[in-house]
């Protein structure tokens, strides 16, 4: 068996695989070149591909995403890095008004095949402006593909699809997962966008997670099993396309669903999924649809305060037990 690799290494691996295959793939961002990225998630790319394909930029988020757009619209496949997902707000015009709308408002004359990668989420004590899980911001904008992998292998497989896609993709890499390890992706590994992963099969309750919440729901499922409750675990992998069919199919079997999401409850992605299940899976349900999300509060710096605000294994287990036994 090959050595395990980290989620962080998988990012550079996933990008490098596509860059070897397609000369139109180029990267730009702050400190991504010789420095290898502030999270070291682009380490080795500059050494392998050099300054004509790996471009260091000033601290200019609008110029980074805007330039990536212009290049994407004229024959390249740029991969732009926005260092922290919180900084998407600095280029929100491009994320919300430009990238997702160009194809539509030009009547299909122009396409935008690009990826914006960004380090998302909390759990590391970076405070309120460097810790947010903001995938729900993106979900409010039609026209963006949203990927958020939870394992090294999924990072590689989804990165391949994201870079090859002719649609603009927001690719959320989770800061708290960077050091986690997993099997390396096999050669040629590609995971289609919009294909959720049933990570664990079960019969009494469906637990749905994404990125950071996947280790939580998996651990919860293990603890539930010890209490004799059989949980099915689904990793959505992408919010758009949303694999609602896989979720609905699971609910038709388990009749209960608990959604665990890191973004705030207020406006979180689980609300969209819950509305679909409540609408299209209503007659399969034996319990109300439940969501566990971050508190609708700015994230605190102190670990013990941050822990108060984020979803936990304990709360997931407690909620699932109540749902399965009531």
């Amino acid at each position, binding site marked *: 068996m090959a050595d395990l690799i980290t989620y962080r290494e998988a990012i550079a691996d996933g990008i490098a695989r596509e860059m070897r295959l397609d000369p139109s793939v180029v990267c730009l961002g702050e400190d991504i070149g010789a420095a290898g990225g502030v999270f070291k998630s682009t380490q080795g790319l500059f050494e392998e591909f050099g300054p004509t394909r790996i471009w260091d*930029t000033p601290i200019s988020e609008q*110029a980074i995403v*805007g330039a990536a757009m*212009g290049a994407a619209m004229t*024959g390249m496949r740029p991969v732009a890095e926005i260092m922290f997902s919180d900084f998407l707000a600095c280029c929100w015009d491009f994320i919300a008004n430009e990238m997702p709308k160009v194809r539509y*408002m030009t009547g*299909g004359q122009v396409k935008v095949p690009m990826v914006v990668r960004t380090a998302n989420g909390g759990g590391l004590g970076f405070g309120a402006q460097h810790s947010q899980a903001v995938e729900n911001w993106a979900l409010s904008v039609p026209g963006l593909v949203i990927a958020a992998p939870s394992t090294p292998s999924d990072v590689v497989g989804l990165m391949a699809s994201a870079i090859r896609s002719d649609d603009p993709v927001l690719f959320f890499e989770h800061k708290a997962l960077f050091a986690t390890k997993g099997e390396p992706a096999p050669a040629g590994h590609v995971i289609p966008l919009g294909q959720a992963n049933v990570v664990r099969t079960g019969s009494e309750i469906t637990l749905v997670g994404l990125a950071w919440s996947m280790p939580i729901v998996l651990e919860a499922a293990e603890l539930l099993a010890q209490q004799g409750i059989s949980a099915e675990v689904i990793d959505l992998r992408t919010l758009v396309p949303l*694999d609602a069919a*896989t979720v609905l199919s699971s609910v038709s079997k388990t009749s209960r669903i608990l959604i665990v999401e890191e973004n705030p409850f207020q406006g979180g992605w689980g609300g969209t999924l819950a509305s679909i299940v409540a609408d299209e899976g209503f007659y399969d349900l034996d319990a109300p649809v439940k969501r566990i999300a971050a508190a609708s509060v700015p994230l605190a710096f102190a670990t013990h305060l941050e822990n108060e605000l984020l979803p936990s294994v304990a709360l997931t287990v407690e909620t699932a037990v109540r749902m399965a036994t009531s």
Partner: protein
Amino acid sequence: MAGSAVASPESLSGWYEQMLVIRGTEKAAFDLFMSGLVKGTTHLAAGHEAVAVGASAALEPDDYVWATYRGHHHAMARGLSAEACLGELMSKQTGSSQGKGGSMHMTYAPGNMMGSYAIIGSHLPMAVGSAWSSVLRQSGQVSVAFFGDGATNIGAFHEAINLAAVWRLPVIFVCENNLYMEYTPISSVTAVEHPAADRAGAYSLPRIVIDGNDVVVVRDEVAKAAAKARAGEGPSIIECLTYRHYGHSRTDPAKYRPEGELEQWLMRDPVKVLREHLAAAGVGEDEIGEIEQRAQHAVLAAIEAAKAAPLSDPAEAFTDVWADGGSQWRT
């Protein structure tokens, strides 16, 4: 009049016809709006035509052009027909985006006119990106971004020009300074006299201010900048002084203009200036009259064709969101 500028009678005649068709189309857009056939809003470029036609005359057919929501003239200068322009304004199937774009998003991809963007300054980084793409592909193409004076006070303007200068990209930033951001004089909200040109020095670029109502002057300056860009010597900023004949948008009667200002600028109407060039180049009144008639007929035919065309299919509302052509976001 810029007497030193030289152009052949054939070139001048071609530009004259192009400018008249654009002017006529803008007038038609105004009239059709008044008669209820165009909805939403329009930002007409009557008065700005020399910038579009002059710049286009200096460019190669595969160079990239980017515009703002006041962009009909730029799309048409790169080949968009009056019929497709008016069709788009009237939500017709023959419109350039089948009614999904409208006045503020005129695009003509066959002419590498990459679109019109209605968030001020947003297309400036995109033009940097297409210039970067040209360098990466070693294609020799130049990119041109047109923008108003108002765009010079937004962050994207400064981020874009800095990046273009640092990477020495083949991009030309052409400011159409028409003196007003929307209703407010640009001079009252800007710390420098020339909102674009006076910022150039901050990015180690030369300060260039030209007469934007003289098509030949614009052509010559853009040609110089394009040659510089193709030689790998980096970006340029060109500030063109011009004036819009209508208000900012459809709802603006432009009452904030001092008395006599419009009349003064009308004496320097780019169409009038070019007509004088034609006469000076020895093109006779008869010939000029023929060009004017041809342009008028072309616009009238475009109006009739746009009126006669069917509304775009309601199903168009759900096309062109994703690469597969549709709008499906979930299973």
